[in-house]
């Protein structure tokens, strides 16, 4: 009864995809868990936890008509689901600057070394075609403390990238 799958759906974006995909799952007797959907460079992208009592093949068949009609790509993995065990972020980090190759790899490697466990990451290419600006927004857990991340960020800043770290101090009330 506790079989979970991760469904990854990608394709050309248009209005109504989430509704069509989730309706197909609902009508097929599935439950939904946590999900994340973002439009990336004009593409629809979604990752969706699906509880389904049958096999992977059955889940794929449920989605087949929607996938075909909307020209989507579907990828399904069996997963171990950990609901009700969120890790709380304790820092929010924003990096931005002129877009250049390797910016994400370099920044995240420096932060990982300083003990950052990334819990969510979003990035955008903003600005204009001639002057693209890269914006990276991260929430994470500072496994080696905030000062360690601050010194990592000062290295990144010295290379011409704007950095901002805000401690996440959750009010519980």
């Amino acid at each position, binding site marked *: 009864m506790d079989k979970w799958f991760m469904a990854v759906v990608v394709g050309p974006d248009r209005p109504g995809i989430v509704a069509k995909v989730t309706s197909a799952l609902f009508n097929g007797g599935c439950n939904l868990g946590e999900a994340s959907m973002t439009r990336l460079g004009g593409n629809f992208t979604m990752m969706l936890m699906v509880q389904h009592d049958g096999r992977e093949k059955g889940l794929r068949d449920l989605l087949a008509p929607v996938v075909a009609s909307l020209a989507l790509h579907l990828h399904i993995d069996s997963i171990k689901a950990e609901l009700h065990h969120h890790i*709380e972020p304790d820092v929010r980090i*924003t990096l931005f600057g002129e877009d250049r190759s390797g910016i994400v790899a370099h920044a995240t490697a420096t932060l990982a070394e300083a003990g950052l466990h990334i819990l969510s990451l979003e990035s955008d290419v903003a600005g204009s075609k001639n002057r693209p600006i890269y914006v990276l*927004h991260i929430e994470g857990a500072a496994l080696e403390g905030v000062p360690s991340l601050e010194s990592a960020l000062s290295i990144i800043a010295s290379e011409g990238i704007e950095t901002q770290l805000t401690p*996440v*101090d*959750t*009010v*519980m*009330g």
Partner: protein
Amino acid sequence: MALLEILQYPDKRLKQSCDEVVLFDEALRTFLADLEETMRAGPGGVGIAAPQVGRLEQIALVDVSAKKKIKHHGRIVLINPEIIEWQGSVVGREGCLSLPDFTGNVIRAETITLEAQDEFGERQRYKMEGYEARAVQHELDHLKGMLFLDRLVSRRSDLFKRKVYK
């Protein structure tokens, strides 16, 4: 003293507006002591409001003094509270004793001035900022039947700070 049961969303009582307190008696102070014990029993609780334990009256408690390096007023009793001045706005993270395993980002005023009565009915005025001001705004929402879920903003929104706080 006694530990009170904390109501969990979607209990309907959490979405109701609370009545004004008119009687400042010994029974009220006993309730406050229980409320405080309940707040301190929860992990990391820095505030609690009476409707969270099923009492639909305008009573809340806040104590953020356990946090390091912030300005605060210690333990404050907020009865019939009213915010009379807001300034600035800032995104911060909140969680609720009435909603386990979920936290989210909420925009709050950075500085507030509020008036409230204490456990003896005396009118007090506080000016506060930052973490303490956020905790107070969270609790005062409870008295109006509002949860932080009603005010959630997306993770990205702190990139585009809003100027007006409503």
